[in-house]
């Protein structure tokens, strides 16, 4: 266990060294958030409620999804790609630990710093009066944590594609595009017709964005929360199986030469 704690601690220190990267990723997200929030606020000038949202609920929703999309970004999926293309994966494979848990420690180290920044920003937005805050209940926190683990396994599977793909970068904009659309970053998914919502809301992208945001805002019923929790766990099992299969097949293909 100690070895993973060292990896975790090192990753936090590494992230704190490159503070500029963290700050810039949040600045980008805030700029994108500004464009979305002000268009929606302009929409409210002639309306009281849109869907189930009043103006402050909508602002809170849009701020929260934007900030969460930084935490739920696909960056960690590309670590394995770098290791494979450089051949450095071999070094990790002969070390006395599991690559899966080592990469989970790295993932946690990266995310802890981002989560801290998100908390600080939420407090800032709250103090500016742009954010309605309510303490999420235990089930909401459990749901967000489950989705967080799902993110790690989902990105791990995505990263495993680098055993077969030379160019991994196209996956980043595809992921971001799908998160914007199916994760409800541009608009809350419950503004879509119910038939479409029923299909989209249980996808991983919806769980990462829309569902997490609604859970933190305390706007999910107990039944809905339970359904999303089950969906998230089923996705974890599904992607875990895919991960194991791809890892075995990928290692057989891996030559360790590097380019």
């Amino acid at each position: 266990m100690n070895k993973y704690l060292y990896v975790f601690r090192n990753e936090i220190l590494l992230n704190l060294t490159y503070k500029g990267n963290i700050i810039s990723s949040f600045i980008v997200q805030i700029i994108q958030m500004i464009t979305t929030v002000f268009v929606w606020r302009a929409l409210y000038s002639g309306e009281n409620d849109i869907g189930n949202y009043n103006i402050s609920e909508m602002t809170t929703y849009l701020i929260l999804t934007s900030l969460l999309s930084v935490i739920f970004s696909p960056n960690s999926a590309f670590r394995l790609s770098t290791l494979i293309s450089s051949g450095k994966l071999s070094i990790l494979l002969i070390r006395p630990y599991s690559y899966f848990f080592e990469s989970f420690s790295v993932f946690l180290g990266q995310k802890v710093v981002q989560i801290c920044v998100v908390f600080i920003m939420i407090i800032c937005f709250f103090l500016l009066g742009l954010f309605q805050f309510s303490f999420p209940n235990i089930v909401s926190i459990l749901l967000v944590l489950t989705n967080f683990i799902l993110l790690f396994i989902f990105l791990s599977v995505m990263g495993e594609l680098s055993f077969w793909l030379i160019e991994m970068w196209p996956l980043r904009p595809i992921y971001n595009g799908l998160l914007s659309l199916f994760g409800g970053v541009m608009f809350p998914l419950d503004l879509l017709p119910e038939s479409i919502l029923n299909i989209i809301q249980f996808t991983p992208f919806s769980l990462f964005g829309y569902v997490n945001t609604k859970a933190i805002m305390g706007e999910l019923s107990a039944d809905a929360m339970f359904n999303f929790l089950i969906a998230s766990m089923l996705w974890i099992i599904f992607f875990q199986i895919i991960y194991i299969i791809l890892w075995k097949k990928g290692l057989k293909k891996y030559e360790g030469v590097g380019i």
Partner: protein
Amino acid sequence: MFFNYLKIVWSLSISQFFIYRLTSVFVCFFGVLFTTIEVITLFVLYHYTDSINGWDFYSFLTLSATYTLISYIYQFFFTLSHEKLIDKIVEGDLDYDLVRPIDSQLINSIKQLDIPSLINIVIAIVLLCFSVPHVLTGHIFGIVMYILFVLMGVYFYYLVNQFFINFAFWIERPYQIAAIPEYLLDIASRPRNVYPPILHVLFVWVFPILLSTNLPAEILRGDYSVVTLVYFLLFIILFSFLVRIQWKQALKKYQSAN
């Protein structure tokens, strides 16, 4: 000479496009994906209202398509060259461009064309063909003015990018700074009157990035003000001089060492 140079750049870019076919297909796919997301978002927004601060669905779609058009025309001509310029400065590879019989700023702005962006330009034009007939209040003069100001927008966006990339002469690998124009243009993808007064003043009168996309759409709608048109033109002229002076100062700073 410049047109001969452009012909060579074009044929080289086409060859590269066919070498990296899969990458090109991906870039086309992203263009379609992000345009689809934008159009779906507009459908959702306009499901709840007929107008956002005076912009109806077709006007907003025209603005979005104009933003896409400006962004991808810039990308087609300049983005690959600008991306390479930072590394060339750091690695001292600029020397050869400085002794060629063509302007060094020009050659470092158009060295390779991004052919896949053409697909996204076509997508934007298709969107415009769909939206403009519902928006156009003037006549053929409005369309000519629109094309002129789209080109102005591209040139302005080029200048903004060149301005930030030139910082590479003074700061080592300023990738984050070089990305600022892209985020600024994101702000310009929305109608300027949705922003609060302070942002409006900042991005219309201090640094008119909002005008670069909003003016062409406003010209089509026939609700532009001559003051903003003239101001934008004057700003571009002054900014051109500023970027040119910055480039010359930057070359004095360049030491040719990697």
